[in-house]
Protein backbone atom coordinates (compact mmCIF):
# COMPACT_ATOMS: atom_id res chain seq x y z
CA UNK A 1 0.00 0.00 0.00
CA UNK A 2 1.33 3.41 -0.72
CA UNK A 3 -1.04 6.34 -0.75
CA UNK A 4 -4.04 7.18 1.37
CA UNK A 5 -6.51 9.90 0.46
CA UNK A 6 -8.61 11.44 3.21
CA UNK A 7 -11.51 13.82 2.89
CA UNK A 8 -11.92 16.83 5.15
CA UNK A 9 -14.94 19.05 5.20
CA UNK A 10 -15.22 22.47 6.76
CA UNK A 11 -18.44 22.57 8.74
CA UNK A 12 -20.00 24.75 11.42
CA UNK A 13 -18.33 23.87 14.73
CA UNK A 14 -20.16 21.15 16.64
CA UNK A 15 -20.53 23.35 19.72
CA UNK A 16 -22.26 26.21 17.87
CA UNK A 17 -26.01 26.63 18.17
CA UNK A 18 -27.36 26.40 14.61
CA UNK A 19 -29.70 29.15 13.44
CA UNK A 20 -31.95 28.82 10.40
CA UNK A 21 -32.12 31.72 7.97
CA UNK A 22 -35.46 33.56 8.13
CA UNK A 23 -36.15 32.85 4.42
CA UNK A 24 -35.75 29.08 5.07
CA UNK A 25 -33.11 28.59 2.37
CA UNK A 26 -30.43 27.32 4.71
CA UNK A 27 -28.60 27.99 7.95
CA UNK A 28 -26.66 31.08 9.01
CA UNK A 29 -22.95 30.59 8.25
CA UNK A 30 -21.63 34.16 8.27
CA UNK A 31 -19.62 35.01 11.35
CA UNK A 32 -20.06 31.52 12.78
CA UNK A 33 -17.13 29.45 14.02
CA UNK A 34 -16.19 26.66 11.64
CA UNK A 35 -13.94 23.67 12.15
CA UNK A 36 -13.18 20.26 10.68
CA UNK A 37 -16.03 17.76 10.61
CA UNK A 38 -15.50 15.48 13.68
CA UNK A 39 -15.88 12.30 11.62
CA UNK A 40 -13.28 13.57 9.16
CA UNK A 41 -10.92 14.14 12.09
CA UNK A 42 -11.32 10.46 12.90
CA UNK A 43 -10.56 9.58 9.27
CA UNK A 44 -7.44 11.77 9.28
CA UNK A 45 -6.26 10.24 12.55
CA UNK A 46 -6.66 6.74 11.14
CA UNK A 47 -4.69 7.62 8.01
CA UNK A 48 -1.91 9.22 10.05
CA UNK A 49 -1.80 6.17 12.32
CA UNK A 50 -1.43 3.96 9.26
CA UNK A 51 1.50 6.06 8.17
CA UNK A 52 3.07 5.78 11.60
CA UNK A 53 2.67 2.01 11.44
CA UNK A 54 4.34 2.09 8.01
CA UNK A 55 1.20 0.76 6.35
CA UNK A 56 1.04 3.88 4.22
CA UNK A 57 3.79 5.95 2.66
CA UNK A 58 1.91 9.14 2.01
CA UNK A 59 -1.31 10.70 3.26
CA UNK A 60 -3.10 13.28 1.14
CA UNK A 61 -6.02 15.38 2.37
CA UNK A 62 -8.64 16.69 -0.02
CA UNK A 63 -11.12 19.43 0.76
CA UNK A 64 -13.78 20.88 -1.50
CA UNK A 65 -15.10 24.27 -0.52
CA UNK A 66 -14.56 28.01 -0.26
CA UNK A 67 -11.18 29.68 0.38
CA UNK A 68 -11.52 29.16 4.15
CA UNK A 69 -11.37 25.39 3.60
CA UNK A 70 -7.61 25.91 3.49
CA UNK A 71 -7.68 26.44 7.26
CA UNK A 72 -9.35 23.07 7.65
CA UNK A 73 -6.70 21.54 5.42
CA UNK A 74 -4.03 23.15 7.62
CA UNK A 75 -5.53 21.46 10.65
CA UNK A 76 -5.31 18.13 8.81
CA UNK A 77 -1.69 18.87 7.87
CA UNK A 78 -0.97 19.73 11.51
CA UNK A 79 -2.36 16.34 12.52
CA UNK A 80 0.24 14.65 10.32
CA UNK A 81 -1.06 14.62 6.75
CA UNK A 82 1.73 15.12 4.18
CA UNK A 83 0.06 17.39 1.66
CA UNK A 84 -3.28 18.91 0.83
CA UNK A 85 -5.42 19.41 -2.24
CA UNK A 86 -8.00 22.14 -2.24
CA UNK A 87 -10.72 22.29 -4.87
CA UNK A 88 -12.02 25.79 -4.60
CA UNK A 89 -15.67 26.48 -5.13
CA UNK A 90 -17.58 29.27 -3.49
CA UNK A 91 -20.84 31.08 -3.10
CA UNK A 92 -23.97 29.73 -4.73
CA UNK A 93 -22.12 26.87 -6.43
CA UNK A 94 -20.89 25.57 -3.07
CA UNK A 95 -24.33 25.82 -1.51
CA UNK A 96 -25.76 23.70 -4.31
CA UNK A 97 -22.92 21.17 -4.24
CA UNK A 98 -24.13 17.64 -3.52
CA UNK A 99 -22.50 14.39 -2.36
CA UNK A 100 -22.56 12.96 -5.89
CA UNK A 101 -20.37 15.81 -7.17
CA UNK A 102 -18.00 15.48 -4.24
CA UNK A 103 -17.66 11.74 -4.80
CA UNK A 104 -16.90 12.26 -8.48
CA UNK A 105 -14.17 14.73 -7.50
CA UNK A 106 -12.76 12.23 -5.01
CA UNK A 107 -12.79 9.53 -7.65
CA UNK A 108 -10.94 11.77 -10.09
CA UNK A 109 -8.30 12.85 -7.55
CA UNK A 110 -7.82 9.27 -6.31
CA UNK A 111 -7.05 8.17 -9.86
CA UNK A 112 -4.82 11.14 -10.65
CA UNK A 113 -2.81 10.71 -7.47
CA UNK A 114 -2.79 6.90 -7.73
CA UNK A 115 -4.24 6.37 -4.27
CA UNK A 116 -4.84 2.87 -2.91
CA UNK A 117 -7.17 3.73 -0.10
CA UNK A 118 -9.71 6.46 0.55
CA UNK A 119 -10.79 7.15 4.12
CA UNK A 120 -13.71 9.50 4.66
CA UNK A 121 -15.79 10.49 7.63
CA UNK A 122 -19.07 8.57 7.62
CA UNK A 123 -21.06 11.78 7.42
CA UNK A 124 -20.71 15.51 7.86
CA UNK A 125 -22.41 17.07 10.84
CA UNK A 126 -23.96 19.85 8.76
CA UNK A 127 -25.97 18.06 6.05
CA UNK A 128 -25.82 14.53 7.57
CA UNK A 129 -25.97 12.99 4.09
CA UNK A 130 -23.86 9.89 4.73
CA UNK A 131 -23.48 9.29 0.99
CA UNK A 132 -20.05 10.44 -0.16
CA UNK A 133 -18.08 7.30 0.78
CA UNK A 134 -20.62 4.96 -0.76
CA UNK A 135 -20.93 6.99 -3.95
CA UNK A 136 -17.15 7.34 -4.28
CA UNK A 137 -16.81 3.56 -4.10
CA UNK A 138 -19.46 3.25 -6.80
CA UNK A 139 -17.79 5.88 -9.03
CA UNK A 140 -14.46 4.06 -8.85
CA UNK A 141 -15.98 0.57 -8.75
CA UNK A 142 -13.89 -0.14 -5.63
CA UNK A 143 -15.03 -2.22 -2.64
CA UNK A 144 -16.41 -0.25 0.29
CA UNK A 145 -16.15 -0.77 4.04
CA UNK A 146 -18.36 1.84 5.63
CA UNK A 147 -18.87 2.64 9.35
CA UNK A 148 -15.48 1.21 10.25
CA UNK A 149 -14.73 0.90 13.96
CA UNK A 150 -11.41 -0.96 13.56
CA UNK A 151 -9.03 -1.36 10.64
CA UNK A 152 -6.26 -3.96 10.51
CA UNK A 153 -3.91 -5.17 7.87
CA UNK A 154 -4.72 -8.61 6.48
CA UNK A 155 -3.03 -10.64 3.73
CA UNK A 156 -3.44 -8.77 0.47
CA UNK A 157 -5.91 -6.28 1.92
CA UNK A 158 -7.57 -5.04 5.05
CA UNK A 159 -9.71 -6.48 7.81
CA UNK A 160 -12.39 -3.99 8.81
CA UNK A 161 -14.79 -4.21 11.73
CA UNK A 162 -18.02 -2.43 10.88
CA UNK A 163 -20.65 -0.98 13.18
CA UNK A 164 -24.03 -2.35 12.22
CA UNK A 165 -27.40 -2.30 13.97
CA UNK A 166 -27.01 -4.03 17.29
CA UNK A 167 -23.52 -5.38 16.79
CA UNK A 168 -20.33 -5.61 14.82
CA UNK A 169 -19.51 -7.15 11.47
CA UNK A 170 -15.99 -8.12 10.42
CA UNK A 171 -15.17 -8.08 6.75
CA UNK A 172 -12.03 -8.41 4.68
CA UNK A 173 -11.49 -6.30 1.63
CA UNK A 174 -8.93 -6.10 -1.12
CA UNK A 175 -7.22 -2.87 -2.02
CA UNK A 176 -7.91 -0.35 -3.45
CA UNK A 177 -10.94 0.35 -1.26
CA UNK A 178 -13.06 3.10 0.24
CA UNK A 179 -13.53 3.22 4.01
CA UNK A 180 -15.77 5.50 6.03
CA UNK A 181 -14.90 6.19 9.66
CA UNK A 182 -17.35 5.66 12.48
CA UNK A 183 -17.19 7.41 15.85
CA UNK A 184 -15.38 4.65 17.74
CA UNK A 185 -12.57 4.06 15.25
CA UNK A 186 -10.08 6.13 17.27
CA UNK A 187 -9.61 9.29 19.31
CA UNK A 188 -8.29 12.05 17.05
CA UNK A 189 -5.18 13.87 18.22
CA UNK A 190 -5.26 17.58 18.89
CA UNK A 191 -3.65 19.86 16.31
CA UNK A 192 -1.20 21.62 18.64
CA UNK A 193 0.17 25.11 18.08
CA UNK A 194 3.73 24.05 17.09
CA UNK A 195 2.31 21.51 14.64
CA UNK A 196 0.03 24.11 13.08
CA UNK A 197 3.07 26.38 12.59
CA UNK A 198 5.00 23.52 11.00
CA UNK A 199 2.02 22.69 8.79
CA UNK A 200 2.30 26.10 7.16
CA UNK A 201 5.33 24.79 5.29
CA UNK A 202 3.49 21.79 3.87
CA UNK A 203 2.18 22.15 0.32
CA UNK A 204 -1.47 22.66 -0.61
CA UNK A 205 -2.34 22.28 -4.26
CA UNK A 206 -5.16 24.52 -5.41
CA UNK A 207 -7.54 23.33 -8.11
CA UNK A 208 -10.76 24.58 -9.59
CA UNK A 209 -13.82 22.57 -10.50
CA UNK A 210 -12.88 22.94 -14.18
CA UNK A 211 -9.50 21.26 -13.47
CA UNK A 212 -11.18 18.09 -12.24
CA UNK A 213 -13.82 18.24 -14.95
CA UNK A 214 -16.87 17.42 -12.85
CA UNK A 215 -20.31 18.62 -13.88
CA UNK A 216 -21.70 20.34 -10.78
CA UNK A 217 -25.26 20.77 -11.96
CA UNK A 218 -27.46 20.13 -8.89
CA UNK A 219 -29.46 16.89 -9.01
CA UNK A 220 -31.97 17.88 -6.39
CA UNK A 221 -33.33 21.07 -4.98
CA UNK A 222 -33.59 22.10 -1.34
CA UNK A 223 -37.19 23.17 -0.88
CA UNK A 224 -37.00 24.52 2.66
CA UNK A 225 -34.89 24.31 5.79
CA UNK A 226 -36.74 24.55 9.08
CA UNK A 227 -36.07 24.42 12.80
CA UNK A 228 -36.98 21.19 14.61
CA UNK A 229 -40.26 21.48 16.55
CA UNK A 230 -39.90 23.10 19.96
CA UNK A 231 -40.61 20.83 22.91
CA UNK A 232 -43.85 21.75 24.63
CA UNK A 233 -43.77 22.84 28.23
CA UNK A 234 -44.84 20.27 30.83
CA UNK A 235 -47.21 20.86 33.72
CA UNK A 236 -47.15 19.92 37.39
CA UNK A 237 -50.07 17.83 38.61
CA UNK A 238 -51.25 18.14 42.25
CA UNK A 239 -52.10 14.49 43.01
CA UNK A 240 -52.28 10.95 41.70
CA UNK A 241 -56.00 11.04 40.88
CA UNK A 242 -55.55 13.96 38.49
CA UNK A 243 -52.56 12.16 36.98
CA UNK A 244 -54.62 9.04 36.32
CA UNK A 245 -57.51 11.00 34.85
CA UNK A 246 -55.14 13.03 32.67
CA UNK A 247 -53.42 9.89 31.39
CA UNK A 248 -56.82 8.35 30.62
CA UNK A 249 -57.84 11.50 28.84
CA UNK A 250 -54.73 11.30 26.65
CA UNK A 251 -55.31 7.59 26.05
CA UNK A 252 -52.06 6.35 27.63
CA UNK A 253 -53.74 3.95 30.11
Amino acid at each position, binding site marked *: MSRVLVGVKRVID*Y*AVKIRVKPDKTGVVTEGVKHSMN*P*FDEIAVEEAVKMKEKKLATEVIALSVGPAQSQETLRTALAMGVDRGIHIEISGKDYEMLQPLHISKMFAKIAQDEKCDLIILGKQA*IDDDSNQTAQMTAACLDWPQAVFASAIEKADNGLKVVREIDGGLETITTKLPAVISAD*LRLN*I*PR*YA*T*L*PNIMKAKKKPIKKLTVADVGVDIKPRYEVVSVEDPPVRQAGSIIPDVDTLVSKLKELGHV
Partner: protein
Amino acid sequence: MSQKNRVIALYKNLQYLLKEYPADAKKMQIGCKKAFLRNKDETDPKKIEEMIEKGEYVKKEIETLYALKKYRAMKKRYYD
Protein backbone atom coordinates in the same frame (compact mmCIF):
# COMPACT_ATOMS: atom_id res chain seq x y z
CA MET B 1 15.65 23.82 23.85
CA SER B 2 16.79 25.61 26.94
CA GLN B 3 14.65 25.45 30.04
CA LYS B 4 13.57 29.06 29.58
CA ASN B 5 12.42 28.45 26.02
CA ARG B 6 10.54 25.36 27.12
CA VAL B 7 8.65 27.38 29.71
CA ILE B 8 7.77 29.98 27.08
CA ALA B 9 6.65 27.32 24.62
CA LEU B 10 4.52 25.66 27.29
CA TYR B 11 2.91 29.00 28.13
CA LYS B 12 2.11 29.73 24.49
CA ASN B 13 0.69 26.25 23.97
CA LEU B 14 -1.51 26.51 27.04
CA GLN B 15 -2.80 29.94 26.06
CA TYR B 16 -3.59 28.64 22.58
CA LEU B 17 -5.40 25.62 23.98
CA LEU B 18 -7.40 27.65 26.47
CA LYS B 19 -8.76 29.92 23.74
CA GLU B 20 -11.24 27.17 22.98
CA TYR B 21 -12.15 26.39 26.57
CA PRO B 22 -15.90 25.62 26.58
CA ALA B 23 -16.87 27.60 29.67
CA ASP B 24 -15.08 30.89 30.37
CA ALA B 25 -12.02 30.95 28.10
CA LYS B 26 -10.88 34.43 29.14
CA LYS B 27 -10.95 33.52 32.82
CA MET B 28 -8.94 30.36 32.20
CA GLN B 29 -6.34 32.25 30.16
CA ILE B 30 -5.93 34.84 32.93
CA GLY B 31 -5.74 32.06 35.53
CA CYS B 32 -3.02 30.38 33.50
CA LYS B 33 -1.07 33.64 33.24
CA LYS B 34 -1.36 34.19 36.99
CA ALA B 35 -0.07 30.69 37.70
CA PHE B 36 3.01 31.36 35.57
CA LEU B 37 3.58 34.80 37.13
CA ARG B 38 3.27 33.37 40.63
CA ASN B 39 6.38 31.28 40.01
CA LYS B 40 8.36 33.72 37.92
CA ASP B 41 11.06 34.14 40.59
CA GLU B 42 11.80 30.42 40.83
CA THR B 43 15.46 29.77 40.04
CA ASP B 44 16.04 26.15 41.09
CA PRO B 45 16.24 24.20 37.79
CA LYS B 46 14.95 21.06 39.47
CA LYS B 47 11.80 22.79 40.71
CA ILE B 48 11.27 24.47 37.34
CA GLU B 49 11.54 21.04 35.74
CA GLU B 50 8.79 19.77 38.06
CA MET B 51 6.59 22.71 37.14
CA ILE B 52 7.09 22.16 33.42
CA GLU B 53 6.10 18.55 33.93
CA LYS B 54 2.96 19.66 35.75
CA GLY B 55 2.20 22.10 32.93
CA GLU B 56 2.59 19.38 30.32
CA TYR B 57 0.25 17.21 32.36
CA VAL B 58 -2.37 19.97 32.47
CA LYS B 59 -2.01 20.38 28.71
CA LYS B 60 -2.72 16.67 28.19
CA GLU B 61 -5.71 16.91 30.53
CA ILE B 62 -7.19 19.80 28.57
CA GLU B 63 -6.70 18.03 25.24
CA THR B 64 -8.40 14.94 26.64
CA LEU B 65 -11.24 17.05 27.98
CA TYR B 66 -11.83 18.56 24.53
CA ALA B 67 -11.72 15.15 22.84
CA LEU B 68 -14.15 13.70 25.37
CA LYS B 69 -16.53 16.63 25.06
CA LYS B 70 -16.62 16.24 21.29
CA TYR B 71 -17.04 12.47 21.51
CA ARG B 72 -19.92 12.80 23.95
CA ALA B 73 -21.63 15.43 21.82
CA MET B 74 -21.40 13.18 18.75
CA LYS B 75 -22.57 10.14 20.68
CA LYS B 76 -25.55 12.01 22.07
CA ARG B 77 -26.48 13.37 18.65
CA TYR B 78 -26.15 10.24 16.54
CA TYR B 79 -26.10 7.15 18.74
CA ASP B 80 -28.45 7.60 21.74
